[in-house]
């Protein structure tokens, strides 16, 4: 019996990791499309999002069934709960990738600001790396690494602040860049939100490993 449950659990884990890769790819492509002004790639990101959404539903369905039929406890239960909660975080990250892609499509044709675009590209690469690292930490159930990655979110928040300030300055100096710059601000804020979801994921990895529900990047308050 345990073997059957174990293999179901392994399948769930694999399908969740795949979802992580799908979302990671969506973010990567959305950023690449933004940097390269590639509308076609941006459209691909938008089109592929329904696969990510479907995967989330599929993971939830399987999790509910396993809880109802197998009554898992301790680490088994934590794994299922982690996947249920973390898959909804991943799904939201995918939505932000879509939003970046939409901005890419919109921004084309408007006067641009190369310096700000370069800063956004830099911020994007940093976020991308955080996403890849947190997925790796999940696969290894590495709570220490997860916590460290969440610590990097401060840098993402700072990058957002800097880009925001630059955009405002730019709009004041050259009103013709107002439309483009407001999209820059939005893209930076989507990236900032993705960073927040990385923090959520690291909280779930810590729960998975330690059974502690923690709130990171918020005075490190602990519940339980």
């Amino acid at each position: 019996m345990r073997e059957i449950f174990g293999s179901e659990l392994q399948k769930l884990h694999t399908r969740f990791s795949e979802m992580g890769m799908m979302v990671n790819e969506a973010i990567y492509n959305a950023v690449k499309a933004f940097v390269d002004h590639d509308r076609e790639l941006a459209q691909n990101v938008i089109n592929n999002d329904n696969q990510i959404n479907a995967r989330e539903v599929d993971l939830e369905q399987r999790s509910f069934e396993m809880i109802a039929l197998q009554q898992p406890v301790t680490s088994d239960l934590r794994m299922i709960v982690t996947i249920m909660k973390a898959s909804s975080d991943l799904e939201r990250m995918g939505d932000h990738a879509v939003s970046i892609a939409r901005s890419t499509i919109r921004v084309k044709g408007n006067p641009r600001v190369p310096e700000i675009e370069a800063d956004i590209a830099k911020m994007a690469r940093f976020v991308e790396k955080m996403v890849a690292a947190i997925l790796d930490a999940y696969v290894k159930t590495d709570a220490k690494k997860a916590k460290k990655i969440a610590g990097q979110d401060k840098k993402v928040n700072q990058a957002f602040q800097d880009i925001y300030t630059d955009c405002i300055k730019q709009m004041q100096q050259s009103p013709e860049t107002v439309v483009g710059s407001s999209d820059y601000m939005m893209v930076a804020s989507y990236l900032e939100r993705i960073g927040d979801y990385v923090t959520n994921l690291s909280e779930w990895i810590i729960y998975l490993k330690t059974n502690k529900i923690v709130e990171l990047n918020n005075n490190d308050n602990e519940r339980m």
Partner: protein
Amino acid sequence: MATIIETNDTHLYYGKKEALKGISMAFTANEITALIGPSGCGKSTLLRTLNRMNDLIPNVTITGKITLNGQDIYAPEMDIVELRKEVGMVFQQPNPFPFSVYDNVVYGLRLAGIRDKRQLDEAVETSLKAASVWEETKDVLHQSALALSGGQQQRVCIARVLAVKPDVILLDEPTSALDPISSSKIETMLLTLKKDYSIILVTHNMQQAGRISDRTAFFLDGRLVEYTNTTKFFTNPSKQESEDYISGRFG
């Protein structure tokens, strides 16, 4: 949290086989303690040492100390009948005597010499009510208890224990022979009873331990592996052996 029963380095041997390998634990009053573990791990043996049921088995040797309210229950001056009045036991198979429901419940009281009909009547009603079986039996009190369903018989057996007003109730897999509805009635009843009694429960049903017990003790091969509060035990046990057992990774 007052301790009601305490075992101190309790060893039990069936002949040469060591069934309990030094158990030291304290049972808290007015709580439900669940004893779990695979068959042969010693949990029922331990339960039976708590009211000296093992005295009846030949070739049993018990060392270490067990106290009830601070009093050594294996001391020579201990009166076993008195002990079993204070520490009652309910078994896996409902075992009503082949008498009427009424005579079953008052059995212990009559043994103790009580003859006053009003007192007996009152004990029957109170005990059957406390065991949540009064409504089903009040009109058939003088019919045979054997005619009742298994779940009703088990609750009558619990009433029989309650009638002598024990401090502690030991239950050895009390619901394993019952359907889920009867089991649920007994679980609800135990939760109600714990304000007046200390309850120690051997169960193979993990969900039952999780649902009703305050503390869980996990035994393996005659050893007490882990003893902690039930929520902690079922969400994040300290020992790998506990984790493996409750996740079904054994055997």
